[in-house]
């Protein structure tokens, strides 16, 4: 289960069909496409007039950077929380 299945076995399970995302190169393409879109959105702050209520909202790229940083922090903190909070699956059933 933990080992990623080889392409041949995946294709076998698909009934001989190849899906576009079965190829890891295409997964990377999706990732880089996301990077490009994010870059464009970051720069978009320069080309329109922001109408905001709070002062820090008008900082260049605030929403993008905030979104990235807090999400990153969220996952890393949650990962650490696992060390304290995680138990076996049948913990309450024993």
């Amino acid at each position, binding site marked *: 289960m933990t080992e990623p299945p080889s392409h041949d076995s995946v294709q076998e399970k698909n009934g001989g069909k190849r899906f576009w995302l079965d190829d890891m190169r295409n997964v990377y393409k999706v990732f880089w496409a996301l990077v490009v879109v994010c870059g464009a959105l970051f720069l978009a702050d320069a080309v329109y007039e922001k109408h905001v209520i709070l002062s820090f909202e008008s900082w260049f790229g605030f929403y993008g950077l905030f979104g990235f940083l807090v*999400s990153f922090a*969220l996952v890393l903190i949650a990962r650490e929380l696992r060390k304290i909070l*995680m*138990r076996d699956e049948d913990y309450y059933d024993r």
Partner: protein
Amino acid sequence: MTAEFPPGLLLIVGAVLVPFLKGNLRSVYTLALPLLGIWQLTALEPGTFGVLSAFGFEQTHVRVDKLSLLFGYVFYIAATLGILFAWHRDDRVEQTTALVYVGAAIGAVFAGDLITLFLYWEVAAIAAIFLIWAARTERSFRAGVRCLIIYMLSGILLLTGVAMRALETGSVAFDHIGLDSPSGLLILLAFGIKCAFPFLHNWLQDAYPEASVTGTVFLSAFTTKLAVYALARGYAGTEVLIWIGVAMTAFPIFYAVIENDLRRVLAYSLNNQLGFMVAGIGIGTTLAINGAVSHAFAHIIYKALLFMSMGAVLYRTGTVKGSELGGLYKTMPWTTGFCIVGAASISAFPLFSGFVTKSMILTAAAKEGYLVPFLILLFASAGVFHHSGIKIPFFAFFAHDSGKRPKEAPVNMLLAMGLASFLCIAIGVYPQPLYALLPFPVEYTPYTTTHVVTMLQLLLFSGLAFATLQRSGLYPPELRSTVLDFDFSYRRLAPWMAGWLMNVGERAWMTMTSASLPSLRGLASLAIRQFGPHGRFARNQSSSFSLSISVALLAVLLLMFFAR
């Protein structure tokens, strides 16, 4: 004539017939009831009816205004979706209790006084428990019992609060309550339990994921949103709710990241979404209240959609554990698509329902200068995209290929999900009809360049963080596990403490008896020796006693004689 019939009672009375119908006829009948209900609501005029006097108070069985109508409509819509989704299910208990549950929730939102509210509140609670038990598993039974105890606590608090309020004010009308008196606090706690306030929340994550594939879809819509309605009615502008709300948006998302059961992840994100509504109610301006209740409306539909998509996965594969799933998009493309629509809606992507509702709450927070709450809500918005928007579809349908090749979901499930998806997009693209239903006039434009661009920045950069963490291997893998939450306190800690106390008490008793037994024995035998049948005091007791009295009397007489 139809308009004078209490809206919720329609389903409760209608449910009586369900056990006697069979097969498709039963499904057609159960589906017809909420549709009839929607038709009835369109005929209702604002006002009250069913006013009667009981327990010495004037009670209003039905109060129709914009707030109750909004919740009435969306509850009926949710019921319709749920019944369609459960069309294939042949289970009298579940189909009957589901109708009673929905009917009670609708009855409660139309209740004009607190006694009527309490009665419907309790019927909804008991029906919800039966809906959980309808899964007929050991786990669902136990979770249902835990849930029942907590629900009863909510009921007792509500009843006590209502009784105190009736004494204080001489009225049981359900209008603004506020926190000016102790009764207000009790009623707030009763609502807070059902609204899953922090530390009162765990019944939600405990019980909902244990219900059946179809039961959870019903459960997700009503109990908590009934509480949101009650808070909006009774506690608008109560500032402490802002802080309770932002806490609710923030802490569940950490759990959602590490939880493995995807329906439990959805329960955590449900809790997080309730936080947005509670914060909006706490801010209390017309914009914020509009935002809170419209968000409840949109939320009921997209949350049901997400639970339906995970329900379909559970139905087809027998599991909703992230660690066991992956790659299902290959054979369940429609379910995948509908799940993504739900995910985009809860994440508030432009053109989806969450965008046009949640933004009102955030704007209201900024306008009223609530700086820290605003930032926490923003963090929670990024977080909800992270765990509901990405994690749910990613681990179920994409991620590593689990090798599972289930069939696509049954047609009735696809229809229900398709209808819910349509509504999510329709509200997002064209929010005006929803805005027209809101309690206050809407002077708000969701689609401004600033708003669309900033929201896309927030969400896509959050997505970029997910992708980066995935690629670098930093993202915590889905693991078979139990994550400890507050329910640890009553499922483990309290039993442990009770056991420890019993243990210590028993040992103390043993020590006491064994250490003091010899001396106690000595004391007992001494007493027996002195006072027993052969003891000194037992010897010729009556004669010696009368003799000593006579001697004493004689002495007194002699003393008196010589003293003269």
